[in-house]
C-alpha cells in the first residue's frame, strides 16, 4: 500500500489500488467519476445515495489504516447501520479515540446482545 491518503491525494492514484483490493464493480464505476479530482472532493460527495454505506465499511477496512483522519471520519459518517458500525469497532485496531467515539455513537444502546457480548469478552476488539 502507498503513502498516507489525504484530501489532496489524486483519485487516479488510488483507483488501480482499489481495483486490486477487489472493490465491487459498482463501487469502482462510482469512483471513476472522480478520476482527475482529489480524494477530498470524492469523500465530500459520499452522501450521494448511490454511494452505499457498505462501500464506506469496505474502504475503512481496506484503506482506512493508511488514510488521513479527515478521510476516515467522512467514511465513518456514512455508516448508519448499528451492526456495521459495531463490526468496524471490533475490527479496526488503528482507530483514534475520536473515531472510536464516532462509531460508538452509531450503535450504543441499539444492540443490547452484541454490547453485552463485548462487555463479557465473548467478542473482543482488535484495538488494545
Amino acid at each position: 500500500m502507498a503513502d498516507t491518503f489525504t484530501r489532496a491525494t489524486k483519485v487516479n492514484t488510488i483507483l488501480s489500488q482499489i481495483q486490486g483490493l477487489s472493490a465491487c464493480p459498482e463501487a469502482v464505476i462510482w469512483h471513476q467519476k472522480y478520476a482527475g479530482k482529489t480524494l477530498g472532493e470524492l469523500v465530500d460527495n459520499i452522501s450521494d445515495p448511490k454511494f452505499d454505506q457498505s462501500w464506506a465499511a469496505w474502504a475503512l477496512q481496506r484503506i482506512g489504516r493508511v488514510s488521513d483522519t479527515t478521510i476516515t471520519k467522512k467514511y465513518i459518517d456514512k455508516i448508519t447501520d448499528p451492526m456495521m458500525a459495531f463490526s468496524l469497532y471490533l475490527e479496526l485496531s488503528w482507530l483514534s479515540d475520536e473515531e472510536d467515539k464516532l462509531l460508538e455513537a452509531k450503535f450504543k444502546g441499539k444492540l443490547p446482545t452484541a454490547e453485552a457480548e463485548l462487555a463479557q469478552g465473548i467478542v473482543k476488539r482488535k484495538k488494545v
Partner: protein
Amino acid sequence: MAVTGWKTPGTCESVDRDGKEAWANPDYAKTSDNNNAVCGLPKTDYGDWLRLTNFGFAVGDIPSGSTIDGIEVKIEHRAGGANSIKDSALYLRKTSGQIGDNKASATYWGTSDAEVTYGSSTDKWNASLVGTDIISTDFGIDLSGYNASTEDAVDALIDCISIRVYYTEGAFIPCQNYYPKILAH
C-alpha cells in the same frame, strides 16, 4: 410460570431491506431438515429481511389474561465461510411491525449447522407483548444477516427458526364474584 412448546413459522418470506440481497427459498426455514433459506451477502454488507410469522400460537397455548414473562427464539444457522457472517438485526414483530430490542449477536456463525438461542424465560425483549399479540398470525421475527468479509460474498444459511413463550396465567376469578353485578341488571 409456564412455557409453551417450540413453534415454527407457517409463513416465511424475503422482504426488502434497503434494496439489498433477497433470501432464496425462505420456506426452508420452516423445518429443521438441512434444507436452507439462503441469502448471498456481498462483502461488508447486510441483506434483506427474512420475515417469519404465523407461528400458530393459540389460546390453548397462552390462556387469556396471561402475563408474558419471556420469549426465546432458537435459530439453526450456518455460514458459507468462516469468520464472515453474523447477525445484522433480529427483531420480534407484531401487527404494527418490528418491536422492542434488536437482539443481533456479534458472534460469527459457524460453518456447520448450530442452534443459537436468543432471549430467556425472563427476557421480554422490551416488546411489551400481551397474549393476543402472540396469538396473532402477524407475530414473528425479522432477521437480517451481515457479511463482515472484505474479500468475498458469503452465503448466510438458515435451516429452522422456532419460538417459545414463557407466561404466567391470570388469577382465577370465581364466578360468584360476578353474580351481584349480573343480578343488578
